[in-house]
């Protein structure tokens, strides 16, 4: 197996793992604390590799997540597209932020994602979510440095791009 295909499989594997983590059933108490894993992993890849993450990929991942989640088809596709678009737009700056600034930026992105989701839900006619619905972005942002360092470290150990 060439290094190139290994790195491609690694990329796909992390995305699949993120989707699995999203599906992972948790006790009811922990459910609102579950971060939006696909967004975090997609963010990591869009910052770290220049051409792999495109809007099309974000759309595909979002559709898969929708199918897996059983939610309205296209909801997560929309959210991930918007997220990845912003990340790609500011990629050059985000990449060279110190880690705490990057964490803040991720928090802003995730909050923006929640607001977008709120819009979609309200348009679809659901009621306002409870307060603890807003915890998830903070958990995601708090996990971001660790996720970033872990994935970076693994990538360095595997010597893949």
């Amino acid at each position, binding site marked *: 197996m060439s290094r190139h295909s290994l790195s491609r499989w690694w990329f796909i594997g992390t995305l699949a793992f993120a989707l699995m983590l999203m599906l992972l059933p948790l006790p009811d108490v922990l459910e609102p604390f579950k971060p939006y894993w696909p967004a975090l992993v997609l963010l990591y890849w869009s910052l770290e590799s220049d051409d792999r993450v495109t809007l099309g990929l974000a759309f595909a991942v979002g559709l898969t997540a929708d199918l897996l989640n059983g939610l309205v088809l296209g909801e997560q*596709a929309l959210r991930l597209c918007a997220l990845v678009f912003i990340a790609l737009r500011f990629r050059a700056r985000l990449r060279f932020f110190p880690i705490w600034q990057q964490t803040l930026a991720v928090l802003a992105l995730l909050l923006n994602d929640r607001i977008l989701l709120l819009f979609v839900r309200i348009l679809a006619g659901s009621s306002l979510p409870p307060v603890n619905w807003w915890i998830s972005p903070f958990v995601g942002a708090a996990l971001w440095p660790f996720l970033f360092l872990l994935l970076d470290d693994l990538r360095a150990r595997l010597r893949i791009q």
Partner: protein
Amino acid sequence: MARTRDESSPLFAGNAAGTLRLIVYLALAMVLMVLDQRNGWLWRVRYSAAAVVEPAYRLAGLPAAGVRTLSVAFADRQRLTEQNQRLRENLLLANTKLNRMASVAEQNQRLKQLLDTQHSLDLHVQLARVIGIDMGAYRYRITLNLGARDGVKLGQPVIDAHGVMGQVREVLPTTSMVMLVTDPEHAIPVVIERSGLRTVAYGSRSGDELTLPNLPLAADVRVGDRLLTSGLGGRFPPGFPVGDILAVAPAATGMFLVAQARPAADIDRSADVLLLHDQAEPDGPPSPATPVGPPRDLAPGKGAVAADPLRASRTATKPMVAAARPGTPR
């Protein structure tokens, strides 16, 4: 990993093509959402995708299942024992409750049958509970929870949902003693429903059947014939089921037929019985018709007026005399 700045990653400005692509994708997502919300054909896509999705769920569910297995494996012995104990107690309690429910349901059924009897016959009855049973040597009696204070009178017939049970033999202030139709000292005038033959059914020493010891040899009696109260003797109202003929055979003397009958009432099973308040018509000669004489204004003088109250009192006392000696069994 220094990177050269190129067109695809500008530092500050985005390019128009990227924005356009974003708009296209967002529009596509919107269309998908609307289609999915409107319940269009997208369910087919979902349906076929379910085959792929299902293993994913299994995979995602693995950790939770693992944790559960581990918690069972490492649950300490004492807790399991405690739980077992508690479950056992609960089971016992639930079974007890279930049994009580069953008995209550049965009681309900019986009471309903009694009520049906009451309604269908339009009788004036009183519900009584059996509180004691005396199955001594050749004595088949039961004690009811009603007595003189509740209006129970001597000789009142007692029935249940299926037929005649007996009659009140003793009345105490709050309880009363009922002699069952199967008591050897009891006799009840009956009529065979099919043929209309009148006879008397006695109790028996075994206490669970009736005997008809003096049927004529030529009498038309068959196994399975139903016995009804005939109403003769003035104690039981006519038309109540008493029993079914079980066996017919010539008596040892060869002069009569002897028949055995099974009582229709649930003699040894009833817990609730009905006390009949409508006593049969007292027997004896019919009360004399009030004498019709010439009109009063034709009567001569005052003497006729003085005779009238006397005559009225005589007609009033006659039925009372008749009622005072109701037919006694046997």
